[in-house]
């Protein structure tokens, strides 16, 4: 017996110009905020963008975006609703407020299902908020989406960066392009992560200072677009993604 779903994924994404996975070796480094802010900034500049929350067991982008009652439309598949100017897809539409306790095989199945039935249409950028680590979701996405690029987020901690090094090594083995590394929640001006990033031959994109007021911007995209994280994301957009 053959699972037919994988054969249609390339077709579903054929009109998406760039597909960027925002990823990290460890959880809690702020990749959902980076992914969401990046998508919002691209939308603000007039690009057609989509945000896909692939962190099935711990989704949070719906909270960052302040999604209330949006639901996908059923039309020859699933058409993501437009939320704050971006096409937005999340498992939360279906799991609601319930926990989604998924093992690796279930994560792969849900990922393949959503990739095979979601009709993104024409997009300039599809940003994917990844779960932490280098297990099923990363491996499946690299296998199924041939044009994927990775943007990696770390904190200033060498513990987080150690996992990033492993992720970089894996992505290189898989011949996946790495856009660069973002250092998030910087508490001081130390350049340790910048130097370490250069040592492994990856572009250091920016350092985002820790912002104690960020919590107040969750669920309010206008406030979010005026935070320190948004200002730094603009640099990534201008100096790297659009240059």
């Amino acid at each position, binding site marked *: *017996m*053959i699972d037919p779903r994988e054969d249609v994924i390339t077709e579903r994404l054929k009109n998406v110009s760039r597909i960027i996975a925002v990823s990290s070796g460890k959880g809690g480094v702020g990749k959902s905020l980076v992914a969401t802010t990046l998508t919002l900034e691209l939308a603000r500049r007039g690009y057609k963008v989509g945000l896909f929350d692939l962190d099935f067991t711990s989704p949070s982008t719906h909270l960052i975006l302040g999604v209330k009652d949006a639901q996908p439309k059923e039309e020859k598949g699933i058409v993501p609703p437009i939320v704050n100017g971006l096409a937005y897809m999340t*498992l939360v*539409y279906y799991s609601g407020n319930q926990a989604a306790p998924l*093992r690796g095989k279930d994560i792969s*199945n849900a990922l393949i299902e959503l990739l095979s039935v979601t009709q993104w249409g024409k997009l300039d950028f599809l940003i994917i908020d990844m779960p932490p680590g280098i297990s099923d979701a990363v491996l499946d996405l690299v296998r199924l989406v041939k044009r994927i690029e990775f943007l990696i987020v770390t904190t200033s901690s060498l513990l987080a960066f150690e996992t990033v090094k492993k992720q970089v090594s894996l992505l290189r083995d898989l011949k996946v392009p790495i856009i660069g590394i973002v250092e998030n929640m910087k508490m001081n001006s130390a350049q340790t992560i910048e130097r370490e990033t250069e040592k492994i031959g990856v572009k250091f994109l920016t350092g985002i200072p820790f912002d104690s007021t960020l919590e107040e911007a969750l669920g309010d995209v206008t406030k979010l677009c005026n935070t320190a994280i948004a200002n730094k994301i603009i640099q990534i957009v201008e100096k790297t993604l659009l240059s």
Partner: protein
Amino acid sequence: MHEWALAEAVIAAAEKIAEKEKLREVKEVTIKVGELQQVEEDILRFALSQLKPSNFKNAEFRITKARTALRCRVCGNSWLFKRNNLDAATVEAIHFVPEVAHSYIKCPKCGSPDFEITEGRGVWLENIKGVR
């Protein structure tokens, strides 16, 4: 018409096999549909008829249904999925992404959501016959 997207996947996979097997004309495609996803057979059949390429024009689509078997990873209990135990919104959510069953269904014996879908998850391409 979520079934349309699944039908496109079936056709894409069947075309790939037909090409690999060098089938000039496809005569029969057998599809297995798991109960868990609650696929509407009439809609799937209609979508398949609309999507079939020229070398499938005389192909018969045989759709067989499979019951959904679940097995608890905690206590080992095995049971069959029953749609009647769920409300319409939950059935619809599982229809779109069968894995969200883990958010709504629990082992009837021990209450754990950590179970395995051993059979009857979604749509499978079971067999394809044709002439070379």
